[in-house]
């Protein structure tokens, strides 16, 4: 890692969810309830182990949220519990360095 020198950065978590569109609005509501202060989303196409392609109507959506490690954990747990059984959904987590950490919710650790 190359910590940024000038601006003070903090390490947060980037949670990425790729899901069939039918669950989009429910997912967004839950994510914000679990503590995310924002999100970014866009339409994608995809193939996976379940995703039989559906019809055109059911293409996928990708949701990205920058959150504290605690919230990240809750989001991943929520997605796994509620959607893995019957829906086309994947979720993965990465570290990201951000400036203005407080923007993404409270967080006790630093990079």
């Amino acid at each position, binding site marked *: 890692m190359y910590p940024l020198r000038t601006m003070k950065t903090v390490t947060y978590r980037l949670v990425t969810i790729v899901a*069939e569109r*039918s669950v989009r609005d*429910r997912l967004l509501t839950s994510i914000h309830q679990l503590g995310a202060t924002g999100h970014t989303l866009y*339409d994608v196409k995809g193939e996976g182990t379940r995703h*039989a*392609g*559906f*019809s*055109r*109507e*059911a*293409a996928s959506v990708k949701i990205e949220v920058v959150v504290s490690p605690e919230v990240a954990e809750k989001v991943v747990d929520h997605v796994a519990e509620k959607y893995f*059984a*019957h*829906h086309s959904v994947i979720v993965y987590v990465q570290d990201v360095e951000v400036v203005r950490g407080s923007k993404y919710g409270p967080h006790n650790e630093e990079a």
Partner: protein
Amino acid sequence: MADVLLASLLSPVVLAFVLGAVAVAVRSDLEIPEPLYQALSIYLLLAIGLKGGSALSVTPLADVAWPVLGTLGLGILTPIIAYNVLRRLGKMDRTNAAALAAHYGSVSAVTFIAAQTVVALAGYPPEGFLPALVAVLEVPAIIVGLLIAYSRGERAGSWQEAMKEVVTGKSIVLLIGGMAMGWIAGKDGMAPVEPFFIHGFQGALTLFLLDMGMTAARRLRDLKAVGVFLVAFGILMPIVHGALGVWVGLATGLSVGGAAVLGAMVSSASYIAAPAAIRVGLPEANPAYYLTASLGITFPFNLTLGIPLYLAIAQWLGG
């Protein structure tokens, strides 16, 4: 009937469907951009609504009441028939049977449009208010299908979310919204938008069917996952429902053309409203079944052979 069949098969709309399927078969790089598909489907649903609404505004209530009631009855009866056929003859599990029942009880707007065109060309202009029947037919079957499933065990989905999807889904909002607009604006009010919504309609439908042909052909790749029984179901169930629809249409006072179109509607399987609601309410049902059957089998069958058949039945019963 051979005439009608030929005219129907050789119309640009059906030919576009075939072209789409061919493009997929030869693995062309042709792609209909997603926003174009969505734009066309918004346009078509709104246009049907507008047309139906402005026709309703000049139709006496008495002419509409019986067909509406008859259609409502079919919307409740046909998913029950379909469910029992799938359970008893097909030995299908409850969840997937209920999901398919919702689809086959509901209606495909594009099948409706195609039927209207073919039947009118064959010299049997259908009643103008038929789009109202599409709106009536769309919802009940989905509720019936979900009710069947939810009354038979724990469900992974959410009943409320599914109901919300059913009544606020985009196809119902555009169809009923368009009808309200057409009804309020009336024939005169509609005049300025006619070039766009009426004259452009068949052409836009042609482009839409190019896309449908591609989607249907892609679905056919899942055919083996689906099994012989479902292929047979996807052809025979529409014929039964279609005949029933024609009979109810004539019995409630529709013309031969109107009854044929009602037959096509009842025979058709939903592929917008029902999948959206079932995915929310019955996520454990397998989309490969209901999408392949509805889009890959029933839609092409109706588009080519089904519609002329329902017209023939209507001519025979009502002529």
